[in-house]
Structures are given as C-alpha cells and as structure tokens.
C-alpha cells in the first residue's frame, strides 16, 4: 500500500538537545496513525518539521510519494496538510465563520462573500457531524466547540492530511467521545490522520497503527489492534510502568490543616454568589485526602483560599494549630504549606526565568540563597543541579535552561521537585498529573505517596477518577461548592463516586457527610 506521508531519517537539533534523531514516520492514506511518546519525546518537533515551522538538519519528507521541501504553514497547506494545535489558533473577537474562512475568504470585487462560505461550512458541519454556531463569537463558545471550529478550518481548506496535537487534553469525557467519533468519520471519508497523544486508551479506541518515539528516537511502529496497552506503554517509557498503588496502612496523626465553615464568594464581576459554601474538613499527618469533583465546582476557589491567593469571606483556617485565615501567601509558604498549582504556566512558573531561578521562586530571599540583599548565584545553581539530579528533570542546559523551552512534563516535574523539596507539612497538589504521560504520572504519584508515608499531610485535588480511587486515604466529594460526601475509597466503586460527583447521592454506602 502507498504511503501518503513519509518522513525518513529526520534529525532536528536544538542547543543542548537532539529533539529528533533519525526519526521515521510513514502514514497510509485513510488511516488514523497515532504518534505516541512521553512529554518531550520529540512528537511536536516532528510535526513542526512536517508543518514547515522547523527545518530539519537531516532527512527527507515525501508527500504522496514525491519528495518535498516545506518552508512554512502556507506550503504545508498547499500540500493538503492541516493541523489542530494544542493551543487553538483562533481569533477570539471573530465569529466562528470568520475564523474558518480567515485567510481563504471568498471575495468578489474586493467585498467579502460570506454567504457562500457559510453554505460550504454548514454543509461540512452536516457531513461530519461537527456542530457549530457560525455566527457565535469564538470567545463565547466552549472549548469543545472551538476544537470543532479548528477541524472545520482544515476541512474548509480541503486538507487531506489532518494532524491533531494532543486534542483531548482540554476536553471533557463526553467531548472526547465525540471527537473520537468524528475522527473515525474523517478516516472513513479517506482523510489521513496523525493523532499525537500519550493516552493509551485513546490510541486503543481509534488508531490503526502507532509510531512510538522515546527521547527523540524512533522506537517502532506497531499495529494497534494486536498490541497490548502494556506493550505500548513499555515502548514509550522504556520500562514497565505500574500505575497501581498499594497504600500501606497507616494511622493518621495530628491534624495539620483544619478548615472550618469556609465561605468564598465569586470574584467575577457582577456576581455575588458563594462558590465555596460552608466547607469544613481536616487533613492529618500521614494521609492523602482527595477532593474529588467535576471541574468548576469550587475547587479552584477553595485552593486559592487555602494557599492565600485569595482571602476567604468567612470561616477559619488552622495550620498546625495556628490561625492562618488572614495570613499572606509568604507566611503560609514559610510555615509549612507547599502548593502544586493547577495551572503551571499561570501560577507555577515564571517562564522567562531559568529553571534554576524557578526552583528558588519561593526561597530566593532565605539566607541560603541571599546575603545582604544579594542573590547567592552559585548556591542557587548548586541547589538547582541537586534537584535536577534528584528529581530527574530533563533540560537542555541544566540550571540555566529557560523554563519556557522545557517540555510540559519536565516543567511539572520541576514544580513538584521545588514544592516537595521545601519539606512542607501540608502539600496541596492540584491536578498534579494533568496532561502528563504515564511515566511522569507514575513518578508523581509515587512522590505524593512518599510524602504521606513520611508523615506529611497531602491534600490532592483531582478530576481523574482513577487517580482519586488509587491514591486517597479519604475522598471528599465537592459539588457546587459544598462537600457532599466523605468516603472511604475501599468501600465504594468508581460508579458510585461518579454519582456523588454528579450531585446525585446514591445514599447506599459510606454516607457520613460532615
């Protein structure tokens, strides 16, 4: 069978790192071809080469059997290659229709002919079951619909080769199902799809074949149907991965954090409702307490109130017996709270600082790193080197690597390293494994359990049911800002937990709401 894309022996180097080393990718017409690899394995680099954003040092690209040189997205487009980027490339203040036709406008006598475009878009939307509202502003529509707009953009340009760069990272489970359905539909119509991901379930669900990369190297290409998830994960990580965690029984000690009747009002303009309502709970030494819930049920606001990013409207917070309700972030940082934030780019890192500077983001002023107002740069670099080594953070230039240039997984590892190494009494971890590959997930899970076993209190906030069930000593379910259940993970099933999270308490098991 003929290949529609052949990338042969592609090598691409960056300062300090070989992002692609003799990588080969061959995609057949009409197949869904998964590109699997850990964060930083070189998947995005390879796709950027295919899209003309980078020029490879070595290697040949053939499209439909013909050797080509691609110097930019425009030429890629002319060859029928389209890409849905992980971060959408949409103009927020334009409508859906305007975004789809942008750059390909039908013009008559210098005037836009949007009616024809609208008809074509609606026909495509019908044909592939991609429901969109063409006159809605992009800023007003859901992330799922924005993604459908991106797909329609490719179809409108009559692209034959569709690249999806980690398309499911931002979607809800229902939206993921819809996307999978759409992808199958597109392949059935003869489109060829490259599906970049590190989620094995999704590969098993839709992909025909799978190319695996590890640390920039080509590992192999396999037929998905006849390959087990375990084999795929081993190829990707380079060793056996075990996500099952066996929590050693441990009697929790003294409470570290106590939350009493906490209320937080919405900070959005024109709103005055409580987003955290009368929440009370405690986290003790040597236990992992998980707050489970569907996104947007007050978790973010609760965490911000706990860590001092916003002040609660009423209630009492106690850390190791001390009232911290009105204390600053700095006070909480230095008195035993560490925080792995939900959004690593917004809160977790200063992307324009180096890795080393980011690793002392909370500690730069302590005597260890500062002397009479001057930073002790040697000490900072030595400390950073120590953490890089101890926590296996991969970076091109060590402590001096710009944080922005690191892969998502290694950025997250850097944050985890920084927070755990501060030796906190309470570790607040908010979706610590979001968007990470199995190897990194396994690693971070083990680190959280280590903290617990060392007698620290861990508060985990997660949306992933598996993670919640696997890691917790206790599960608190949050729904519309209130804690609606305090559950023992050993006594409930995933299904029951799901019902609690959806706000319909089954009432059968372990129902002792605080």
């Amino acid at each position, binding site marked *: 069978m003929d290949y529609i894309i052949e990338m042969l022996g592609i090598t691409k180097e960056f300062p300090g*790192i070989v992002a692609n080393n003799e990588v080969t990718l061959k995609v057949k017409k009409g197949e869904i071809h998964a590109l699997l690899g850990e964060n930083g394995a070189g998947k995005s680099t390879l796709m950027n080469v295919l899209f003309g954003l980078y020029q490879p040092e070595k290697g040949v690209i053939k499209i439909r059997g013909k050797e080509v040189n691609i110097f930019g997205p425009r030429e890629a487009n002319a060859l029928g290659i389209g890409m849905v980027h992980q971060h959408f490339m949409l103009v927020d203040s334009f409508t859906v229709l305007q975004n789809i036709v942008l750059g390909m406008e039908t013009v008559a006598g210098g005037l836009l002919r949007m009616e024809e475009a609208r008809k074509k878009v609606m026909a495509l939307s019908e044909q592939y079951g991609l429901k969109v509202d063409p006159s809605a502003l992009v800023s007003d529509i859901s992330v799922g619909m924005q993604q459908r707009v991106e797909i329609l953009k490719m179809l409108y340009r009559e692209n034959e080769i569709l690249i999806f760069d980690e398309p499911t990272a931002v979607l809800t489970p229902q939206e993921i199902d819809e996307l999978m359905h759409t992808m199958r539909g597109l392949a059935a119509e003869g489109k060829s799809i490259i599906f970049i991901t590190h989620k094995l379930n999704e590969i098993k669900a839709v992909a025909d074949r799978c190319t695996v990369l590890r640390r920039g190297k080509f590992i192999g290409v396999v037929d998905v149907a006849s390959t087990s998830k375990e084999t795929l994960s081993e190829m990707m990580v380079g060793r056996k991965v075990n996500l099952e965690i066996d929590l050693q029984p441990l009697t929790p000690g003294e409470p570290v954090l106590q939350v009493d009747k906490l209320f937080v009002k919405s900070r959005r303009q024109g709103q005055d409702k409580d987003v955290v309502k009368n929440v009370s709970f405690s986290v003790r030494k040597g236990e992992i307490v998980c707050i489970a819930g569907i996104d947007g049920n007050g978790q973010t606001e609760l965490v911000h109130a706990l860590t001092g990013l916003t002040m609660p409207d009423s209630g009492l917070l106690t850390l190791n017996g001390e009232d911290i309700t009105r204390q600053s972030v700095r006070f909480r940082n230095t008195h035993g709270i560490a925080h792995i934030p939900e959004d690593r780019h*917004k*809160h977790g*890192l*200063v992307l324009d600082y180096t890795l080393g500077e980011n690793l002392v983001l909370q500690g*730069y002023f302590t005597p260890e790193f500062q002397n009479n107002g001057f*930073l002790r740069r040697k000490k900072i670099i030595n400390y950073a080197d120590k953490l890089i080594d101890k926590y296996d953070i991969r970076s091109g230039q060590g402590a001096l690597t710009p944080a922005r240039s690191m892969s998502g997984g290694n950025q997250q590892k850097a944050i985890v390293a920084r927070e755990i190494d501060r030796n906190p009494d309470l570790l607040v971890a908010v979706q610590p494994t979001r968007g990470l590959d199995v190897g990194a997930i396994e690693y971070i899970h083990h680190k959280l359990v280590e903290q617990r076993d060392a007698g620290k209190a861990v508060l985990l906030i997660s949306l992933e049911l598996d993670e919640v069930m696997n890691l917790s000593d206790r599960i608190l379910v949050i729904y519309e800002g209130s804690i609606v259940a305090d559950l023992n993970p050993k006594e409930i099933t995933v299904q029951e937990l799901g019902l609690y999270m959806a706000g319909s308490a089954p009432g059968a098991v372990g129902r002792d709401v605080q």
Partner: protein
Amino acid sequence: MKLTDRIKNMNFSFLSSVIAIIIGLLFGLVILLISNPAQAMGGFSTILTGAFRDMRSIGRVMYFATPIILTGLSVGFAFKTGLFNIGASGQFILGAFGAVIVGIKLPQLGSVHWVVALLAAAILGGLWALLPGILKAYANVHEVISSIMMNYIGMYLVNYLVLNTVYDRLRNQSMGVAKSAVIPKMGLDKIFPRSNVNAGFFIAILAVIVIYIILNRTSFGFELKAVGYNRDASKYAGINEKRSIILSMVIAGALAGLGGGLLYLAGTGKYIEVVDILAAEGFTGISVALLGLSNPIGILFAGLFIGYITVGGDYMQLYDFAPEIIDIIVASIIYFSAFSLIVKNVIDRRRMKLGGGKVQ
C-alpha cells in the same frame, strides 16, 4: 548555558544594535542626498566624525548623553520589570523643577546644596510616577495611559509652579540657580576645555552600575523582574506584587527626575522655559532604552551614541544645510536605531529555524 554561550548571546544583542545603527545612518545619508546632493558626503562624514574633532566635542557628547542616559535607564528599568514608562518626560520635568527650586531657595545648604537639589529631583520624579504605579497595582489601569496623562499634568503643573515661585519675567523662564547648587566639574573642565561636561556624567555612570546590580544581582531585582514577567506566579510565590509594581514605577520615575536635575543644575544656562512643550529627553529615553535593549550597560553606550550624533549634527551647520534638515537626520538615525529589538528578533528567529548549530 556555558560562559561562551553567554558571550555569544551578548554578541548577538550587540550586533543587532550595530545593525540598527547602520540602517539609521544609511537612512540619514539618503535624506542628505535628497536635500543637498553636492554637500551630502561632506555633511555625512561630519556627522560621523564631528564629535571626535577635539576634546571639547568629546566633552559635549558626554554632556548631551548625561540626561538621556538617565531617562533611558528609567524606561529600560521599567521595561525589565514589565512596565512601559512613557511618562519619563513628566517625571523629568518635575525632577528639573525640584532641582531648580531647591537650587534657588536653599543656598544656605552650602557645599551639599547641589546634592540636596539632586535628591529633590529624584524624589519629585519618583512621586510623579507613584500615581501610575498605584493605579496599575490596585486598579489594573495600564501605565501607558496613566503616565502619558501625567506628562501633560506635569508640564502644566511645572509651568504654573515656576510662574508662581521662581519666575524670571524678562525671559519667560525660571531664574538661575545659586552657584552652590551647580554640579561641580571635578576636573572634567580641564580635560575637556570649554565643554559643559560635569560630574553629572559620573552620577549617570553610577546610576547605570546601581541599576545593573539591582536588576541582576539582588533579591529585590529578582522580585521586580518576576512580577514583570508573571504577576500571577509572583503572587503564588509569596511576592507582594502590588508593592513591587509601585516600587518599579517609583524607581523609574526617580531616575528620570534625576536626569532632569542633572541637566538643569549643569550650570550651562539651562532654565525651565514656561512653554507648552513636553520635555524631549523623556521620549529620547525610549529610543535610548530600545537601542540599548534595556540593558543598563547598553543604555550607557546608547546614550553616548545619541549624544555623539547630536554633536556631529551640530557641526553640520558648517555646510549648507537647514537646521531643520539636521534635526530630521538626527531624529531619523535615532528612530531607526530603536529598531534594534526587531533586528534582534530577526536574528533569533533565523538561529532558531536553522537549529542553532551543534549540541554543546
């Protein structure tokens, strides 16, 4: 990053500034050729070499550079901490007024008179940037808007204050400052005879060094830059981000104000004129900061370069050029020089696309 890489990066920054300067000079040459082809080459070589014809001219370069190094530092420091201080002009003139009023009203201070007058300049400049800082920190009002407004308020306020305090009716300007308020020459008048250069130039260099150290070596600068790069992450890290924003603005304002003080205490017949014109030094500071890529050391050299072009331009009057043409040429050289950031981006993108060569 190894030391060699750092040097390489520094070289690329320097290179981009040099390329921008060359583009500016070529553009100036084109204007010369259009306005007076016969004298163009002579005029052009005067611009390039005029500042080196004698020691006096070199002194004049330093004199011209002093205030714009300070306003350049003001804008560059704000840039490095994530703020665009377009209000250097207002801060500059407030600083000038602070220096002049102290320079006239407090002659009893004796030998420290000029030092106190300069301090007053820095304080008034800093105060003038305080309000935009507070608005930015607490109400998220963009500092570009608020500091532009403050430029006009500052200009009219200083006009009003001069009229009511130290007004020289005959000349429509401020009165002269006391002798004790004039910045000493510290021997510079011996090295560069008949030029106006004075110890203010040393103060400018000192300011460059202090700002460089604050930004690159201190935990205070670490905080200010962190807030500039990412306000949310700084808050998360426990940095008082509102305080940092206000302090950044105030320090930037104090630098611009000090620049005003240094110019008006130079003892060179410079008086605050009561006219409705914003101080040009504030805007030249933006060019200086851009040409120097906001690096304090770069700003020092950028300020000297612009002083050098200005002095060279002065000598062009020997040729048959209208003074306006000279102004246009000097302005366009400065204008194009400020493109160094664009040049740098082009170089960086090239390097990125070509892969940056070998693995280290």
